[in-house]
Protein backbone atom coordinates (compact mmCIF):
# COMPACT_ATOMS: atom_id res chain seq x y z
CA UNK A 1 0.00 0.00 0.00
CA UNK A 2 1.52 3.33 -1.03
CA UNK A 3 1.73 6.52 0.99
CA UNK A 4 -1.45 8.03 -0.46
CA UNK A 5 -3.44 4.84 0.20
CA UNK A 6 -2.21 4.90 3.78
CA UNK A 7 -3.19 8.57 4.10
CA UNK A 8 -6.71 7.64 3.02
CA UNK A 9 -6.87 5.27 5.98
CA UNK A 10 -6.01 7.92 8.54
CA UNK A 11 -9.51 9.38 9.05
CA UNK A 12 -10.90 5.90 9.69
CA UNK A 13 -7.94 5.09 11.94
CA UNK A 14 -8.71 8.18 14.00
CA UNK A 15 -12.25 6.84 14.40
CA UNK A 16 -10.79 3.47 15.42
CA UNK A 17 -12.73 1.89 12.59
CA UNK A 18 -10.06 0.22 10.47
CA UNK A 19 -10.40 -3.38 9.46
CA UNK A 20 -7.64 -5.59 10.95
CA UNK A 21 -5.61 -5.81 7.71
CA UNK A 22 -5.84 -2.03 7.20
CA UNK A 23 -4.71 -1.43 10.78
CA UNK A 24 -1.71 -3.71 10.17
CA UNK A 25 -0.72 -1.83 7.01
CA UNK A 26 -0.95 1.50 8.79
CA UNK A 27 1.06 0.28 11.75
CA UNK A 28 3.83 -0.94 9.48
CA UNK A 29 3.84 2.37 7.61
CA UNK A 30 4.13 4.37 10.82
CA UNK A 31 6.77 2.05 12.21
CA UNK A 32 8.76 2.69 9.04
CA UNK A 33 8.94 6.31 10.18
CA UNK A 34 6.43 8.36 8.18
CA UNK A 35 6.30 11.56 10.24
CA UNK A 36 3.75 13.14 7.93
CA UNK A 37 1.18 10.42 8.50
CA UNK A 38 2.02 10.32 12.21
CA UNK A 39 1.27 14.04 12.51
CA UNK A 40 -1.87 13.86 10.43
CA UNK A 41 -3.19 10.93 12.45
CA UNK A 42 -2.56 12.86 15.66
CA UNK A 43 -4.48 15.81 14.25
CA UNK A 44 -7.37 13.61 13.10
CA UNK A 45 -7.53 11.98 16.50
CA UNK A 46 -8.07 15.45 17.97
CA UNK A 47 -10.90 15.90 15.48
CA UNK A 48 -12.46 12.54 16.39
CA UNK A 49 -12.16 13.25 20.11
CA UNK A 50 -13.87 16.58 19.59
CA UNK A 51 -17.00 14.64 18.61
CA UNK A 52 -17.36 13.77 22.27
CA UNK A 53 -17.64 17.48 23.00
CA UNK A 54 -20.81 17.67 20.96
CA UNK A 55 -22.46 15.44 23.53
CA UNK A 56 -21.87 17.52 26.58
CA UNK A 57 -25.19 19.29 26.62
CA UNK A 58 -27.13 16.30 25.33
CA UNK A 59 -26.70 13.79 28.07
CA UNK A 60 -25.25 12.83 31.44
CA UNK A 61 -27.22 13.35 34.59
CA UNK A 62 -26.76 16.30 36.87
CA UNK A 63 -24.34 15.54 39.67
CA UNK A 64 -22.41 12.93 37.69
CA UNK A 65 -19.22 14.90 38.22
CA UNK A 66 -19.65 14.77 42.01
CA UNK A 67 -20.47 11.05 41.97
CA UNK A 68 -17.42 10.30 39.84
CA UNK A 69 -15.30 12.25 42.30
CA UNK A 70 -16.74 10.27 45.21
CA UNK A 71 -15.66 7.06 43.47
CA UNK A 72 -12.19 8.47 42.86
CA UNK A 73 -11.89 9.77 46.39
CA UNK A 74 -12.80 6.34 47.74
CA UNK A 75 -10.01 4.86 45.64
CA UNK A 76 -7.59 7.53 46.77
CA UNK A 77 -8.46 6.78 50.37
CA UNK A 78 -8.12 3.04 49.72
CA UNK A 79 -11.69 2.40 50.86
CA UNK A 80 -12.68 0.82 47.55
CA UNK A 81 -9.83 -0.78 45.65
CA UNK A 82 -10.19 -0.94 41.88
CA UNK A 83 -11.61 -4.23 40.68
CA UNK A 84 -8.95 -6.79 39.96
CA UNK A 85 -6.08 -4.71 41.27
CA UNK A 86 -3.77 -6.44 43.69
CA UNK A 87 -3.21 -4.94 47.09
CA UNK A 88 0.39 -4.27 46.23
CA UNK A 89 -0.50 -1.97 43.37
CA UNK A 90 -2.80 -0.01 45.62
CA UNK A 91 -0.15 0.23 48.25
CA UNK A 92 2.22 1.51 45.58
CA UNK A 93 -0.30 4.17 44.65
CA UNK A 94 -0.67 5.11 48.25
CA UNK A 95 3.05 5.28 48.56
CA UNK A 96 3.24 7.47 45.48
CA UNK A 97 0.82 9.98 46.91
CA UNK A 98 2.49 12.59 49.07
CA UNK A 99 1.37 12.90 52.66
CA UNK A 100 -0.94 15.87 53.00
CA UNK A 101 0.67 18.77 54.86
CA UNK A 102 4.28 19.10 55.85
CA UNK A 103 5.46 15.81 57.22
CA UNK A 104 8.91 14.39 57.57
CA UNK A 105 10.27 11.43 55.67
CA UNK A 106 9.81 9.19 58.70
CA UNK A 107 6.13 10.03 58.93
CA UNK A 108 5.69 9.58 55.21
CA UNK A 109 7.35 6.16 55.36
CA UNK A 110 5.20 5.20 58.35
CA UNK A 111 2.09 6.35 56.52
CA UNK A 112 3.07 4.34 53.46
CA UNK A 113 3.70 1.26 55.59
CA UNK A 114 0.40 1.72 57.39
CA UNK A 115 -1.38 2.18 54.08
CA UNK A 116 0.24 -1.02 52.84
CA UNK A 117 -0.83 -2.94 55.94
CA UNK A 118 -4.34 -1.53 55.74
CA UNK A 119 -4.46 -2.38 52.05
CA UNK A 120 -3.43 -5.97 52.73
CA UNK A 121 -5.93 -6.21 55.59
CA UNK A 122 -8.70 -4.90 53.37
CA UNK A 123 -7.71 -7.27 50.59
CA UNK A 124 -7.61 -10.20 53.01
CA UNK A 125 -10.99 -9.18 54.42
CA UNK A 126 -12.46 -8.98 50.95
CA UNK A 127 -10.97 -12.31 50.01
CA UNK A 128 -12.44 -13.87 53.13
CA UNK A 129 -15.79 -12.27 52.43
CA UNK A 130 -15.71 -13.48 48.84
CA UNK A 131 -14.92 -17.03 49.99
CA UNK A 132 -17.73 -16.88 52.54
CA UNK A 133 -20.19 -15.68 49.90
CA UNK A 134 -19.03 -18.38 47.49
CA UNK A 135 -19.45 -20.99 50.20
CA UNK A 136 -22.94 -19.73 50.99
CA UNK A 137 -23.86 -19.80 47.32
CA UNK A 138 -22.63 -23.38 47.04
CA UNK A 139 -24.59 -24.37 50.15
CA UNK A 140 -27.72 -22.80 48.68
CA UNK A 141 -27.16 -24.58 45.38
CA UNK A 142 -26.65 -27.88 47.23
CA UNK A 143 -29.83 -27.38 49.26
CA UNK A 144 -31.75 -26.56 46.10
CA UNK A 145 -30.37 -29.67 44.39
CA UNK A 146 -31.27 -31.83 47.40
CA UNK A 147 -34.75 -30.43 47.41
CA UNK A 148 -35.05 -31.09 43.70
CA UNK A 149 -33.73 -34.63 44.20
CA UNK A 150 -36.28 -35.29 46.94
CA UNK A 151 -39.01 -34.05 44.60
CA UNK A 152 -37.76 -36.31 41.82
CA UNK A 153 -37.65 -39.29 44.21
CA UNK A 154 -41.23 -38.60 45.28
CA UNK A 155 -42.28 -38.41 41.63
CA UNK A 156 -40.43 -41.66 40.92
CA UNK A 157 -42.17 -43.43 43.80
CA UNK A 158 -45.54 -42.11 42.66
CA UNK A 159 -44.80 -43.31 39.13
CA UNK A 160 -43.80 -46.72 40.48
CA UNK A 161 -47.13 -47.01 42.28
CA UNK A 162 -48.99 -45.97 39.14
CA UNK A 163 -47.06 -48.47 37.04
CA UNK A 164 -47.84 -51.20 39.61
CA UNK A 165 -51.53 -50.32 39.50
CA UNK A 166 -51.55 -50.29 35.70
CA UNK A 167 -49.75 -53.65 35.61
CA UNK A 168 -52.31 -55.09 37.98
CA UNK A 169 -55.22 -53.69 35.94
CA UNK A 170 -53.64 -54.97 32.75
CA UNK A 171 -53.17 -58.41 34.32
CA UNK A 172 -56.82 -58.41 35.38
CA UNK A 173 -57.92 -57.42 31.90
CA UNK A 174 -55.83 -60.16 30.34
CA UNK A 175 -57.23 -62.64 32.79
CA UNK A 176 -60.75 -61.41 32.04
CA UNK A 177 -60.20 -61.76 28.31
CA UNK A 178 -58.77 -65.22 28.79
CA UNK A 179 -61.78 -66.27 30.82
CA UNK A 180 -64.23 -64.64 28.45
CA UNK A 181 -62.72 -66.42 25.47
CA UNK A 182 -62.72 -69.83 27.17
CA UNK A 183 -65.00 -72.42 25.54
CA UNK A 184 -66.51 -73.38 28.92
CA UNK A 185 -67.26 -69.79 29.90
CA UNK A 186 -70.04 -69.48 32.46
CA UNK A 187 -71.45 -66.12 33.45
CA UNK A 188 -73.23 -65.14 36.61
CA UNK A 189 -75.03 -61.80 36.47
CA UNK A 190 -75.51 -60.10 39.83
CA UNK A 191 -78.43 -57.75 40.29
CA UNK A 192 -78.58 -54.83 42.74
CA UNK A 193 -80.16 -55.04 46.15
CA UNK A 194 -81.41 -52.24 48.42
CA UNK A 195 -78.02 -50.84 49.63
CA UNK A 196 -76.81 -50.27 46.03
CA UNK A 197 -79.79 -49.83 43.69
CA UNK A 198 -77.59 -48.64 40.79
CA UNK A 199 -75.02 -51.42 40.97
CA UNK A 200 -74.57 -54.42 38.72
CA UNK A 201 -71.88 -57.04 38.26
CA UNK A 202 -70.92 -60.13 36.38
CA UNK A 203 -68.68 -63.06 37.31
CA UNK A 204 -67.02 -64.99 34.49
CA UNK A 205 -65.82 -68.48 35.29
CA UNK A 206 -63.78 -70.95 33.28
CA UNK A 207 -63.44 -74.31 34.98
CA UNK A 208 -60.82 -75.54 32.54
CA UNK A 209 -58.67 -72.44 33.16
CA UNK A 210 -59.44 -72.67 36.88
CA UNK A 211 -60.00 -68.92 36.75
CA UNK A 212 -62.75 -66.45 37.51
CA UNK A 213 -62.97 -62.69 37.08
CA UNK A 214 -65.39 -60.34 38.76
CA UNK A 215 -66.46 -57.06 37.18
CA UNK A 216 -68.79 -54.56 38.82
CA UNK A 217 -69.98 -51.01 38.43
CA UNK A 218 -72.12 -48.63 40.46
CA UNK A 219 -71.12 -49.91 43.87
CA UNK A 220 -70.75 -47.23 46.57
CA UNK A 221 -67.12 -46.48 47.46
CA UNK A 222 -65.80 -48.90 50.05
CA UNK A 223 -66.20 -47.31 53.51
CA UNK A 224 -63.10 -47.06 55.70
CA UNK A 225 -62.39 -50.29 57.62
CA UNK A 226 -64.58 -52.29 55.27
CA UNK A 227 -64.23 -54.45 52.18
CA UNK A 228 -66.53 -55.99 49.63
CA UNK A 229 -66.50 -59.78 49.55
CA UNK A 230 -67.77 -62.11 46.82
CA UNK A 231 -69.39 -65.42 47.78
CA UNK A 232 -70.25 -68.63 46.05
CA UNK A 233 -73.22 -70.21 47.85
CA UNK A 234 -73.08 -73.91 47.08
CA UNK A 235 -75.53 -76.66 47.78
CA UNK A 236 -72.81 -78.66 49.56
CA UNK A 237 -71.13 -76.03 51.85
CA UNK A 238 -73.27 -72.91 51.76
CA UNK A 239 -71.31 -69.58 51.46
CA UNK A 240 -67.73 -70.03 50.21
CA UNK A 241 -65.50 -66.92 50.10
CA UNK A 242 -64.42 -66.12 46.52
CA UNK A 243 -62.43 -62.90 46.95
CA UNK A 244 -62.16 -59.38 48.31
CA UNK A 245 -62.23 -56.13 46.39
CA UNK A 246 -62.57 -52.40 46.91
CA UNK A 247 -64.76 -49.98 44.99
CA UNK A 248 -63.83 -46.38 44.27
CA UNK A 249 -66.19 -43.64 43.31
CA UNK A 250 -66.82 -43.61 39.56
CA UNK A 251 -64.45 -46.48 38.80
CA UNK A 252 -65.61 -49.93 37.63
CA UNK A 253 -64.18 -52.84 39.54
CA UNK A 254 -62.31 -55.64 37.80
CA UNK A 255 -60.85 -58.23 40.16
CA UNK A 256 -59.62 -61.77 39.88
CA UNK A 257 -61.58 -64.07 42.16
CA UNK A 258 -61.54 -67.75 43.02
CA UNK A 259 -63.68 -70.00 40.87
CA UNK A 260 -66.37 -72.12 42.64
CA UNK A 261 -65.05 -75.24 44.39
CA UNK A 262 -64.75 -77.97 41.74
CA UNK A 263 -67.66 -80.33 41.57
CA UNK A 264 -69.90 -78.27 43.79
CA UNK A 265 -73.30 -77.05 42.69
CA UNK A 266 -73.50 -73.25 42.90
CA UNK A 267 -76.91 -71.98 43.89
CA UNK A 268 -76.13 -68.29 44.16
CA UNK A 269 -73.38 -65.71 43.95
CA UNK A 270 -73.49 -62.65 46.19
CA UNK A 271 -71.53 -59.60 47.30
CA UNK A 272 -71.62 -58.38 50.89
CA UNK A 273 -69.88 -55.57 52.76
CA UNK A 274 -67.61 -56.99 55.43
CA UNK A 275 -64.93 -55.86 57.90
CA UNK A 276 -61.56 -55.13 56.28
CA UNK A 277 -59.60 -58.31 55.72
CA UNK A 278 -62.73 -60.32 54.97
CA UNK A 279 -64.56 -63.05 56.86
CA UNK A 280 -65.10 -66.76 56.30
CA UNK A 281 -68.89 -66.48 56.42
CA UNK A 282 -71.00 -63.45 55.41
CA UNK A 283 -71.96 -61.06 58.24
CA UNK A 284 -72.77 -57.78 56.51
CA UNK A 285 -75.42 -56.36 54.22
CA UNK A 286 -75.84 -57.95 50.82
CA UNK A 287 -75.32 -55.52 47.89
CA UNK A 288 -75.54 -57.80 44.85
CA UNK A 289 -77.00 -61.25 44.17
CA UNK A 290 -77.36 -63.50 41.14
CA UNK A 291 -77.95 -67.00 39.91
CA UNK A 292 -75.34 -68.64 37.68
CA UNK A 293 -76.24 -68.76 34.04
CA UNK A 294 -76.16 -71.85 31.87
CA UNK A 295 -72.74 -73.33 31.12
Amino acid at each position, binding site marked *: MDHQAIR*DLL*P*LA*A*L*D*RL*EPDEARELEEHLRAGCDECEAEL*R*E*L*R*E*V*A*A*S*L*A*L*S*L*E*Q*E*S*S*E*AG*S*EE*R*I*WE*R*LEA*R*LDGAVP*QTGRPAGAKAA*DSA*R*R*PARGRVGAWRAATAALAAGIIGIAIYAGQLSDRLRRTNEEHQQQLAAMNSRLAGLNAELEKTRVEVGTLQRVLGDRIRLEKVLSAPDLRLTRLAPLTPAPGAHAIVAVSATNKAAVFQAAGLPPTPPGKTYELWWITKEHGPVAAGLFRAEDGHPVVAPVAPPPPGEHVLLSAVTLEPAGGVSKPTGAMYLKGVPGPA
Partner: protein
Amino acid sequence: MADAKQAMPADRDLVVAMAAGDSEALRSLNARYGRMLAALARRFLSNESDAEEVVADVLWQAWREAKTFDAARGSVSVWLVTLARSRAIDRLRANRARKPPSGEQPASEPVADPAVELNQAQRASIVRTALAGLDSNERAALQLAYFSDLSQSEVAEKLGIPLGTVKTRMRSAMIKLREALSGRRE
Protein backbone atom coordinates in the same frame (compact mmCIF):
# COMPACT_ATOMS: atom_id res chain seq x y z
CA MET B 1 -13.95 22.07 42.50
CA ALA B 2 -14.99 25.59 41.57
CA ASP B 3 -11.62 26.90 42.74
CA ALA B 4 -9.81 24.68 40.33
CA LYS B 5 -11.94 26.02 37.51
CA GLN B 6 -11.11 29.58 38.40
CA ALA B 7 -7.37 28.95 38.13
CA MET B 8 -7.76 27.30 34.69
CA PRO B 9 -4.37 25.56 34.58
CA ALA B 10 -3.64 23.83 31.28
CA ASP B 11 -4.58 20.18 31.04
CA ARG B 12 -0.92 19.25 30.76
CA ASP B 13 -0.15 21.09 33.98
CA LEU B 14 -2.84 19.13 35.74
CA VAL B 15 -1.35 15.86 34.54
CA VAL B 16 2.10 16.95 35.68
CA ALA B 17 0.65 17.78 39.11
CA MET B 18 -1.08 14.41 39.21
CA ALA B 19 2.22 12.72 38.44
CA ALA B 20 3.59 14.49 41.50
CA GLY B 21 0.75 13.06 43.61
CA ASP B 22 -1.53 16.10 43.74
CA SER B 23 -5.02 14.69 44.12
CA GLU B 24 -6.51 18.17 43.70
CA ALA B 25 -5.28 18.08 40.11
CA LEU B 26 -7.22 14.87 39.59
CA ARG B 27 -10.23 16.58 41.07
CA SER B 28 -9.79 19.47 38.64
CA LEU B 29 -9.46 17.13 35.70
CA ASN B 30 -12.70 15.45 36.75
CA ALA B 31 -14.38 18.84 37.05
CA ARG B 32 -13.20 19.69 33.57
CA TYR B 33 -13.90 16.45 31.74
CA GLY B 34 -15.96 14.17 34.01
CA ARG B 35 -19.36 15.22 32.74
CA MET B 36 -18.30 15.14 29.08
CA LEU B 37 -16.70 11.71 29.46
CA ALA B 38 -19.81 10.44 31.24
CA ALA B 39 -21.94 11.71 28.36
CA LEU B 40 -19.68 9.87 25.94
CA ALA B 41 -19.80 6.63 27.95
CA ARG B 42 -23.56 7.04 28.26
CA ARG B 43 -23.86 6.76 24.47
CA PHE B 44 -22.61 3.19 24.74
CA LEU B 45 -24.03 2.09 28.08
CA SER B 46 -27.60 1.77 29.20
CA ASN B 47 -27.27 3.23 32.66
CA GLU B 48 -25.69 6.25 34.24
CA SER B 49 -23.98 4.31 37.00
CA ASP B 50 -22.06 2.16 34.50
CA ALA B 51 -21.06 5.29 32.59
CA GLU B 52 -19.82 7.00 35.76
CA GLU B 53 -17.89 3.90 36.76
CA VAL B 54 -16.21 3.93 33.35
CA VAL B 55 -15.22 7.57 33.79
CA ALA B 56 -13.91 6.88 37.29
CA ASP B 57 -11.82 4.04 35.83
CA VAL B 58 -10.49 6.35 33.10
CA LEU B 59 -9.52 9.11 35.50
CA TRP B 60 -8.03 6.58 37.89
CA GLN B 61 -5.94 5.21 35.02
CA ALA B 62 -4.89 8.77 34.16
CA TRP B 63 -3.88 9.26 37.81
CA ARG B 64 -1.81 6.10 37.82
CA GLU B 65 -0.22 6.72 34.41
CA ALA B 66 0.25 10.47 34.66
CA LYS B 67 3.99 10.05 34.93
CA THR B 68 4.17 8.30 31.58
CA PHE B 69 1.85 10.69 29.74
CA ASP B 70 3.54 11.92 26.56
CA ALA B 71 2.12 15.21 25.29
CA ALA B 72 3.88 14.74 21.98
CA ARG B 73 1.53 11.86 21.21
CA GLY B 74 -1.61 13.92 21.65
CA SER B 75 -3.51 16.20 23.96
CA VAL B 76 -4.86 15.27 27.37
CA SER B 77 -8.45 15.54 26.14
CA VAL B 78 -7.77 13.10 23.28
CA TRP B 79 -6.11 10.74 25.73
CA LEU B 80 -9.08 10.81 28.10
CA VAL B 81 -11.71 10.60 25.38
CA THR B 82 -9.92 7.69 23.70
CA LEU B 83 -9.65 5.84 27.01
CA ALA B 84 -13.30 6.51 27.87
CA ARG B 85 -14.58 5.36 24.49
CA SER B 86 -12.46 2.21 24.61
CA ARG B 87 -13.50 1.35 28.17
CA ALA B 88 -17.16 2.06 27.42
CA ILE B 89 -17.02 -0.32 24.45
CA ASP B 90 -15.34 -2.95 26.64
CA ARG B 91 -18.06 -2.54 29.26
CA LEU B 92 -20.76 -2.69 26.57
CA ARG B 93 -19.33 -5.98 25.26
CA ALA B 94 -19.09 -7.40 28.78
CA ASN B 95 -22.71 -6.42 29.44
CA ARG B 96 -23.77 -8.02 26.16
CA ALA B 97 -22.00 -11.23 27.17
CA ARG B 98 -23.97 -11.28 30.41
CA LYS B 99 -27.38 -10.65 28.87
CA PRO B 100 -28.86 -10.18 25.40
CA PRO B 101 -29.26 -6.55 24.31
CA SER B 102 -32.72 -5.18 24.90
CA GLY B 103 -32.51 -2.67 22.12
CA GLU B 104 -30.28 -0.44 20.14
CA GLN B 105 -28.11 2.36 21.40
CA PRO B 106 -29.44 3.81 24.64
CA ALA B 107 -31.12 7.10 24.05
CA SER B 108 -29.87 9.57 26.58
CA GLU B 109 -32.24 12.06 28.07
CA PRO B 110 -31.17 15.55 27.12
CA VAL B 111 -30.09 17.29 30.27
CA ALA B 112 -29.31 20.96 30.69
CA ASP B 113 -25.65 21.70 31.35
CA PRO B 114 -25.50 25.05 33.10
CA ALA B 115 -22.23 24.42 34.89
CA VAL B 116 -20.03 23.72 31.93
CA GLU B 117 -17.12 26.08 31.78
CA LEU B 118 -17.12 28.69 29.06
CA ASN B 119 -14.10 27.42 27.20
CA GLN B 120 -15.53 23.95 26.80
CA ALA B 121 -18.95 25.31 25.98
CA GLN B 122 -17.42 27.31 23.17
CA ARG B 123 -15.53 24.32 21.86
CA ALA B 124 -18.68 22.20 22.05
CA SER B 125 -20.58 24.84 20.17
CA ILE B 126 -17.94 24.93 17.44
CA VAL B 127 -18.06 21.14 17.09
CA ARG B 128 -21.83 21.08 16.92
CA THR B 129 -21.84 23.83 14.33
CA ALA B 130 -19.24 21.97 12.31
CA LEU B 131 -21.26 18.77 12.55
CA ALA B 132 -24.40 20.58 11.48
CA GLY B 133 -22.55 21.80 8.42
CA LEU B 134 -21.83 18.28 7.20
CA ASP B 135 -23.91 16.51 4.61
CA SER B 136 -26.55 14.55 6.55
CA ASN B 137 -25.40 11.21 5.07
CA GLU B 138 -21.80 11.92 6.01
CA ARG B 139 -22.82 13.03 9.48
CA ALA B 140 -24.83 9.84 10.01
CA ALA B 141 -21.90 7.64 8.95
CA LEU B 142 -19.49 9.59 11.14
CA GLN B 143 -21.65 9.52 14.26
CA LEU B 144 -22.50 5.87 13.82
CA ALA B 145 -18.82 5.04 13.44
CA TYR B 146 -17.78 6.99 16.50
CA PHE B 147 -20.68 6.52 18.89
CA SER B 148 -21.25 2.81 18.37
CA ASP B 149 -19.37 -0.46 18.48
CA LEU B 150 -20.07 -1.22 14.82
CA SER B 151 -17.43 -2.21 12.27
CA GLN B 152 -17.31 -0.60 8.82
CA SER B 153 -19.33 -3.47 7.40
CA GLU B 154 -21.91 -3.25 10.17
CA VAL B 155 -22.25 0.50 9.65
CA ALA B 156 -22.77 -0.18 5.92
CA GLU B 157 -25.41 -2.74 6.71
CA LYS B 158 -27.15 -0.49 9.18
CA LEU B 159 -27.24 2.42 6.75
CA GLY B 160 -28.10 0.16 3.82
CA ILE B 161 -25.23 1.39 1.64
CA PRO B 162 -22.16 -0.29 0.11
CA LEU B 163 -19.03 -0.65 2.22
CA GLY B 164 -17.04 1.56 -0.14
CA THR B 165 -19.59 4.34 0.25
CA VAL B 166 -19.33 4.10 4.03
CA LYS B 167 -15.58 4.50 3.88
CA THR B 168 -15.88 7.46 1.54
CA ARG B 169 -18.47 9.17 3.73
CA MET B 170 -16.51 8.63 6.94
CA ARG B 171 -13.32 9.91 5.34
CA SER B 172 -15.02 12.90 3.77
CA ALA B 173 -16.81 13.78 7.00
CA MET B 174 -13.61 13.67 9.01
CA ILE B 175 -11.76 15.88 6.52
CA LYS B 176 -14.59 18.41 6.44
CA LEU B 177 -14.83 18.40 10.22
CA ARG B 178 -11.10 19.01 10.47
CA GLU B 179 -11.38 21.93 8.11
CA ALA B 180 -14.32 23.35 10.02
CA LEU B 181 -12.46 23.04 13.30
CA SER B 182 -9.18 24.38 11.97
CA GLY B 183 -8.04 27.46 13.77
CA ARG B 184 -9.39 26.12 17.08
CA ARG B 185 -6.68 24.59 19.22
CA GLU B 186 -6.57 23.66 22.86
